[in-house]
């Protein structure tokens, strides 16, 4: 599979160039190539008049291309100065660090960036915003001519963001070029000189930013047809199946209110970092909650632990199949029955023949392609692993199924099968909540969409009358959504 196809991008000296696109459009791949993390399979990079081919990130950094990744790489246990000069500490004599020199150079660098932090401070004590500026300082101390910032403001307050943007403008005026990646289109429009849009690994356009409207960018970002047919939507939506009131995540200020009705698939949609998974994980007792009530089928249930949730019939299918889902060294039977093992046991003793019967049933019902029940999960394809995960959830006889990114990384055919199954479950009376960052998927599959940003639900949208435009507008706050659940 190609992550990027025939992409051309040119950055002028002293320009801030925005890069936007949906999740999976190829932004990260593109910057990883430019910064030497990946090698391109074809094409060339010309930097500062020279054709370059970076084998390792350090080569890119040494030629003047520095990247500040979304996940900061500041070492918290050492000083700010050491972070800035890691690997290039000023020396006096062989191998002896010149500390006074290092601190004074770092201090003047920090001052030039307007950061009021001592170079002797431990970096871990700094706020995320300050650490970000330290990373920028590190890049500048390496004489970076091109600075790449990936979602730098995603975890900053609006005040901190403003200060960062001001700093970036000042750097541009000193002749530094900047590639700025962000989901926050407002920022892109106010900060950048030009903006490029990636979609499905292809560059669909580069625009002069002045005069561009947010809607133009959105149209460019999503302008594609649905990849396949989605199953038919629900005919009749019944009474409430799940009712959540005032559930509060530990460490979060806002309460969660949510309603799921029988016979509907509800989509929880928001961009990466919008808190949609955290919300779902709180619902399932994985992340601790305080206060609030959860009612399943008219009955109030305790929600203190994962076992509480499983007992109440709330089953969560994690997003990260490999890390949190499958047991790759165990076989199909065990992977299907792990959560429901108690059903196949009498007084703690497992009756394996029953577990195997159930596993065999699901293998044929879900059409899982496997050489047998004893095949290890690591030898199954991604789509079939995902079906095993679904089988595991179904073996618990769920009342409500929360599936997090159910089709990430699986092929179109398996995708359609998974969609089909979710719809059939829903028709059979199981409540289904789909968490996804793929807008076409939630629009095509779900009956309603709850739009999530900053960990709370902004509003509900009926998908029969919605387009990608209306959902994105709700997310970005440029339209009034229907009020929160009745």
């Amino acid at each position: 599979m190609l992550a990027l196809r025939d992409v051309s991008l040119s950055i002028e000296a002293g320009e801030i160039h925005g890069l936007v696109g949906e999740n999976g459009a190829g932004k990260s791949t593109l910057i990883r190539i430019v910064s030497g993390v990946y090698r391109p399979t074809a094409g060339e990079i010309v930097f500062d008049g020279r054709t370059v081919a970076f084998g390792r990130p350090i080569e890119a950094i040494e030629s003047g291309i520095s990247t500040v990744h979304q996940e900061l790489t500041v070492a918290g246990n050492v000083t700010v100065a050491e972070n800035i000069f890691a690997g290039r500490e000023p020396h006096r004599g062989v191998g002896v660090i010149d500390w006074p020199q290092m601190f004074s150079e770092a201090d003047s660098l920090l001052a030039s960036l307007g950061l009021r932090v001592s170079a002797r401070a431990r970096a871990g004590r700094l706020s995320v915003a300050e650490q970000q500026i330290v990373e920028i300082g590190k890049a500048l101390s390496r004489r970076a001519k091109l600075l790449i910032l990936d979602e730098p403001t995603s975890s900053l307050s609006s005040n901190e963001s403003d200060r960062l943007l001001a700093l970036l403008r000042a750097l541009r005026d000193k002749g530094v070029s900047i590639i700025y990646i962000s989901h926050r289109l407002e920022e892109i429009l106010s900060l950048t000189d030009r903006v490029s849009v990636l979609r499905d690994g292809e560059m669909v356009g580069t625009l002069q930013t002045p005069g561009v409207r947010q809607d133009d960018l959105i149209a460019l970002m999503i302008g594609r047809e649905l990849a396949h047919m989605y199953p038919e939507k629900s005919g009749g939506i019944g009474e409430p199946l799940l009712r959540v009131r005032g559930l509060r995540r530990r460490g979060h200020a806002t309460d969660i209110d949510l309603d799921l009705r029988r016979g509907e698939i509800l989509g929880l949609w928001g961009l990466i970092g919008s808190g949609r998974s955290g919300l779902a994980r709180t619902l399932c007792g994985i992340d601790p909650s305080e206060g609030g009530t959860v009612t399943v089928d008219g009955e109030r249930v305790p929600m203190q632990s994962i076992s509480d949730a499983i007992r109440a019939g709330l089953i969560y299918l994690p997003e990260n199949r490999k890390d949190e889902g499958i047991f790759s060294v165990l076989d199909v039977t065990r992977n299907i029955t792990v959560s429901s093992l108690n059903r196949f046991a009498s007084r703690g003793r497992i009756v394996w023949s029953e577990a195997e019967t159930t596993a065999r049933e699901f293998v044929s019902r879900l059409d899982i392609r496997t050489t047998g029940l004893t095949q290890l999960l690591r030898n199954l394809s991604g789509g079939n692993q995902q079906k095993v995960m679904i089988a595991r959830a179904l073996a618990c006889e769920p009342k409500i199924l929360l599936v997090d990114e159910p089709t990430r990384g699986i092929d179109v055919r398996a995708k359609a099968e998974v969609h089909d199954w979710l719809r059939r479950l829903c028709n059979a009376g199981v409540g289904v909540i789909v968490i996804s960052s793929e807008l076409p998927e939630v629009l095509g599959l779900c009956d309603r969409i709850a739009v999530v940003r900053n960990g709370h639900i902004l509003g509900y949208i009926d998908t029969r009358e919605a387009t990608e435009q209306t959902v994105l507008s709700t997310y970005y706050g440029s339209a009034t959504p229907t009020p929160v659940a009745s």
Partner: protein
Amino acid sequence: MASKAAAETAAWAEKKAAHRRFGGVLQQGPQAVLALFIVAFGIVLTAVSPNFLTPLNLQAIATGLAADAIMAVGMTMVLLMRGLDLSVGAVFALGALVAGKLLAGGQPILFAVGAGLAVSALVGVVNGYVISRIGVPHLIATLATLTIARGITVVVTQGFMVSGFPKAFEVVGQGYWGIVPIPVLIMLVIVAAGVWLLRNTTFFHRLYFIGGNPDAARLSGIQVGRTEIIIYTLSAILAGFAGIITSSRLGVVTALYGQGAELRVIAACVLGGVSIMGGEGTVIGSVLGVILLALISNAFVLLDVSVYWQGVVSGVVLLLAVMIDAIRVRRMRST
């Protein structure tokens, strides 16, 4: 589109077949390989030494390995859930010492043994609690309890032997059931129980899930922390019990009891196909590993090689075993 998918499937099948050819023996049957190796080694020993295949020698080997095999049952369970217990050798000594002191002081046998097991269990509870609730890495936590338990045995014995146990107690370690030494019989019962429990009970079978993928296990509703505490406790109880059986056989307890047993037992488990990364392995495999190590040390005796070389050879065997495990894990990741 269809042809591309078909090509991919074919490539995948080919890769798998290649995989089976080159890596299959290691992956699918470490136990079978080990069993064959043990038989081959036995044949070689029979050929080079007339004293190997004699009832007396075989009884001595079996009795000698009984304690390690009992500890290997607990260690297998710990390793399966991606844990590690370095304290077993010291707990072996501590359990035997507590029971031995009480016996030498004239206390009833059941009380003395019970107290020895209780003190062992306490070390296990501390291990489990510190590892699962506080989050101390298992290596460090059990290294600390190893040092503490060993320290206590040195303090209590002051370097002297503890002996003078009642006859009724020594009969257990020194008696026979037919031609089978009683320690071996006890070991067989514990091994059989370990095999059965791991396969057939929800509680023990869940160790495979915990070691296979701790995060997924937690999300599947398994109480990982509670299970860890119980298993570390069980491992310590088995170690203490092995120590008590050994003291009954030898009639004495010293401060050096069980020194280095932890590494020997871990080596045996890994040799037997238990993965250091958790989730894979069986009690049978571990016991086969114990048997192989016992044969190697028997070979030293039969061939009249200085026992001082044994440490070197054990270390080399351990290194080889973990290398094989690492290669298996890497091959697994690349598929």
